[in-house]
């Protein structure tokens, strides 16, 4: 007997329409036919016949009856509910508009955040072997804690693959850099990197031409992206075998074309060369004491990560690498979101922003839902007659609950449509802020999410009114006017408290985030980053650096020019060494120092402040074995008389000539570590110039000409230091901008809610106000009466929100080594702002109420 099952959906269809008394017999018949067909035909065909048989069974005599006690639908009821809902929208336009605007903007924010979170979660997730792909990081135990680095010894990958059976594949990857490549007359700048042989087996970048086993087998191979192929050759076909000149230095043969990495990849590059070639050009990488390239491995199925990490603990040490470095394999898929390490353990990273914005999305939606709940229950007195009559006529509770839920679902659906339009409108701007390429594509998943959001929001917003209103006792309602009880009023107020607390938390967060950003921009970083233009020395410029610098100094508009190997911003060119020894240093301890190889005049160019001693100068001879330390390094080495002391750097005795004030060569997230300058003009490759303000464009074009004179085959690719500096804080900048917008929307939505409540409450008290006015109350005291009620609510919200916002913001600031203090005025400002907005919101209503003519409102009784 075959085990194939009859198709589920058609069986369910059968149950749906077939009369119950026939079910057993007919289903049995169908089963028997199905089994027989299985003997003759394929499962697929048998199922197809089954489906057809079921459809053919839909005949009047066999189907359930449409009339009588058992009905197939509730069309009548739904139609009625919709009509009632529509009428109440038309009648109370203000409430309807407040709800619509609130819910729509709340939903739009939530949708935007959903799109953003979704795209963040997808970063680097496209690699086929993702579940077994690990990046091997390097944990440096230094005297000030463990520092986790991506730079590993250059031979690590090969040694791992050779010596450990668990390692299926291992591959080295260098850093990306911009190079000049040329073919024939065309030369252009492109981003490239050197990678190990199995690169395309480890990572799932798509190869359009070439075989992934072969493309990197020859040392002088080069692979280019389809986009680069178009730029260079004008075509992507038949480029394999062509010759590309690299940096006017050497020719390489194209062995393959890959598809440009998708935007969801953190690695972006235009071309790839072999690691073998890199090794030939950079022999330092063969020394295990030097760290630089990144290492990736694919572990065989079922490898226990912890056991593997334990096994490779001494791997670098045993290969004569730095004794203090322990390799740490980490899942590559997780690194993007969990890329922050403290003491060798992952402590989060971008995931924090994802959490932050998810919470904000939830808050905003919550605020909008609260508006809906509050306004619906507030309107209860308007609808209690309707409910009373319905109940008297025999409506049961569940049908009333159904009515209110369908009303709120209708509301949410309309809002969602509006929200989608809003999202569509603001998406370009949102993309601009987040630096992403998000788009509203109606995939199956998104549609499911949308339906889910409608249900969730509709049920959340509608649940309280539905449960509350349906429980009203008809006798009470029809006899007397008032139905709002004390407990209901209390609940409404506490919901407003929650709303305002959230708003205040948002306000405080925005102030703190913006202050911190401002602080990083204004803080004295220890050098002057303004009007600094820098570019890489290539070709003839690199070979004739001194001549070139002399010519640059003569260019009008250039104030100073020098060269360096360190770019003084994170993510640029850096250098770290453990090879500094001094008298009294604990031989066991390992201290990493940032080193800056510079040319004459660089210290003056960037305005580093020399506290004692002097800078490098051409007036002295033998400057090559002199060094300038920063204050932290001097303190660390415990030197009282630093000038003239001799320190051993990399095995060479070096004399201290000066001490420079601490400066930030990394972001404010990290503390300034020990650092030093050495004069090594031959090792520098970045030309830095200080240019006069106001004539940047002219100066740049002159520099371009000069560069072209030296290097006809290269184009000048310059950068501004202050722009690079700001880029370091890009993610904070984005968080700041986004939180500003989202908080603004959150606050507006809560104010809308407050406005609705205020107008309702003045309406309810209109007679009271009339009587008060007749008895001689002034306008002002009436304004105060109504405002006082809301002031109390907002004050409670402030008391609740300030401690919470303190906790949240100080937690966020903990991420920064250099941060602003949380002073009282931030909280005071947020509180005052909340009260003022609340007053302003209700003032329209209260002033209107205070001007009322008592004769009018007391006429009908």
């Amino acid at each position, binding site marked *: *007997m075959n085990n194939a099952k009859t198709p589920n959906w058609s069986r369910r269809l059968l149950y749906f329409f077939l009369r119950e008394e026939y079910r057993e*017999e007919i289903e*049995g*018949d169908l089963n028997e036919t199905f089994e027989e067909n299985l003997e003759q035909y394929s499962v697929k065909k048998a199922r197809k016949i089954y489906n057809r048989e079921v459809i*053919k*069974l839909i005949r009047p005599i*066999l189907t359930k009856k449409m009339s009588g006690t058992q009905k197939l639908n509730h069309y009548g009821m739904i139609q009625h509910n919709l009509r009632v809902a529509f009428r109440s929208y038309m009648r109370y336009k203000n409430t309807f508009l407040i709800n619509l605007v609130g819910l729509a903007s709340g939903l739009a924010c939530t949708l935007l955040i959903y799109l953003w979170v979704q795209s963040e979660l997808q970063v680097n997730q496209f690699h086929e072997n993702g579940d077994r792909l690990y990046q091997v990081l390097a944990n440096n135990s230094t005297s000030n804690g463990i520092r986790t680095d991506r730079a590993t010894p250059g031979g690590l990958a090969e040694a791992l693959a050779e010596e450990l059976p668990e390692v299926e594949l291992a591959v080295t990857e260098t850093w990306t850099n911009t190079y000049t490549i040329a073919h024939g007359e065309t030369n252009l700048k492109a981003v490239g990197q050197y990678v190990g042989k199995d690169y395309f087996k480890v990572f799932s970048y798509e190869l359009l031409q070439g075989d992934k086993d072969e493309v990197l087998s020859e040392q002088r191979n080069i692979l280019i992206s389809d986009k680069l192929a178009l730029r260079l050759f004008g075509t992507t076909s038949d480029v394999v075998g062509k010759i590309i000149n690299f940096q006017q230095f050497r020719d390489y043969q194209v062995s393959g074309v890959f598809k440009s990495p998708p935007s969801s990849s953190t690695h972006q590059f235009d071309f790839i060369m072999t690691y073998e070639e890199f090794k030939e050009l950079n022999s330092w990488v063969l020394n295990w004491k030097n760290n630089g390239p990144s290492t990736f491995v694919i572990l065989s199925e079922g490898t226990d990560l912890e056991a593997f990490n334990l096994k490779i603990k001494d791997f670098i040490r045993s290969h004569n690498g730095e004794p203090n470095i322990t390799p740490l394999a980490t899942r590559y898929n997780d690194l993007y979101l969990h890329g922050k390490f403290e003491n060798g353990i992952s402590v989060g990273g971008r995931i924090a922003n994802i959490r932050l914005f998810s919470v904000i999305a939830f808050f905003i939606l919550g605020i909008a839902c609260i508006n809906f709940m509050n306004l619906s229950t507030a309107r209860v007195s308007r609808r209690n007659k309707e409910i009373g009559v319905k109940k008297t006529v025999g409506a049961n509770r569940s049908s009333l609950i159904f009515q209110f839920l369908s009303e709120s679902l209708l509301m949410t659906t309309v809002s969602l449509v509006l929200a989608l339009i809003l999202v569509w409108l603001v998406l370009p701007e949102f993309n601009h802020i987040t630096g992403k390429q998000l788009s509203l594509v109606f995939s199956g998943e998104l549609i499911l999410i949308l339906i889910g959001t409608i249900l969730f929001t509709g049920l959340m917003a509608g649940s309280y009114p539905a449960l509350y209103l349906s429980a009203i006792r008809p006798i009470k309602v029809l006899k007397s006017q008032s139905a709002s009880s004390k407990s209901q009023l209390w609940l409404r107020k506490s919901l407003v408290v929650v709303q305002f607390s959230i708003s205040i938390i948002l306000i405080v967060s925005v102030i703190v985030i913006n202050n911190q950003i401002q602080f990083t921009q204004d803080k004295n970083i220890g050098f002057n980053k303004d009007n600094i233009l820098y570019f890489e020395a290539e070709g003839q410029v690199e070979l004739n650096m001194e001549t070139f610098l002399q010519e640059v100094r003569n260019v009008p508009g250039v104030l100073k020019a020098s060269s360096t190997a360190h770019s003084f911003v994170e993510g640029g060119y850096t250098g770290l060494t453990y090879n500094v020894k001094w008298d009294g240093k604990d031989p066991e301890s390992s201290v990493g120092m940032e080193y800056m190889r510079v040319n004459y005049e660089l210290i003056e160019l960037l305005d580093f402040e020399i506290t004692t001693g002097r800078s490098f100068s051409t007036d002295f001879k033998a400057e090559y074995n002199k060094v300038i330390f920063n204050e932290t390094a001097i303190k660390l080495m415990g030197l009282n008389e630093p000038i003239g002391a001799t320190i051993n750097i990399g095995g060479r005795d070096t004399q201290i000539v000066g001490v420079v004030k601490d400066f930030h060569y990394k972001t404010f997230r990290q503390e300034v570590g020990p650092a030093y300058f050495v004069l090594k003009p031959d090792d520098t490759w970045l030309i830095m110039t200080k240019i006069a303000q106001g004539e940047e464009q002219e100066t740049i074009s002159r520099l371009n000409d000069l560069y072209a004179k030296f290097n006809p085959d290269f184009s000048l690719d310059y950068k501004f230091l202050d722009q690079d500096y700001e880029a370091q804080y890009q993610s904070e900048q984005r968080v700041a901008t986004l939180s500003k917008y989202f908080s603004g929307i959150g606050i507006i939505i809560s104010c809308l809610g407050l406005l609705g409540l205020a107008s309702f409450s003045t309406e309810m008290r209109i007679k009271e106000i009339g009587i008060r006015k007749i008895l001689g109350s002034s306008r002002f005291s009436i304004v105060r009466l109504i405002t006082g009620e809301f002031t109390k609510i907002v004050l409670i919200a402030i008391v609740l929100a300030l401690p919470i916002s303190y906790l949240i913001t100080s937690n966020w600031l903990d991420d920064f080594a250099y941060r602003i203090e949380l002073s009282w005025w931030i909280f005071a400002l947020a509180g005052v702002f909340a009260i003022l907005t609340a007053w302003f919101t209700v003032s329209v209503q209260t002033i209107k109420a205070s001007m009322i003519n008592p004769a009018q409102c007391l006429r009908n009784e």
Partner: protein
Amino acid sequence: MKKTKLGEFEELVLMTVVVLQADAYGVEIKRELESRLNETLSVGSIQSALKRMEEKGFLKSEFGEASQKRGGKRKRIYQATPHAHKVLQEMKDVRSQLWASMPSMVRS
């Protein structure tokens, strides 16, 4: 032939029920008719004919045994009522009388 109203297809099904006797249940009837008529029939057409004739009093039925092949569902065995036998006989008589009175060229 008053009040009987037996359709052509219904008549065929009814006769099959009589032929099959104790084996007369949905699928078996379908199988028998398919082989005799040399065409494929749907479960729906057989079932609706059976239900209609049961309603009109030509058939009565009771549950039979279940089998694994039917997914544990019982068969319903149909049996023609005496009334049905009478009607069938009547129809046959009418037909043979008509045949007999037809001109010979049609008969051959």
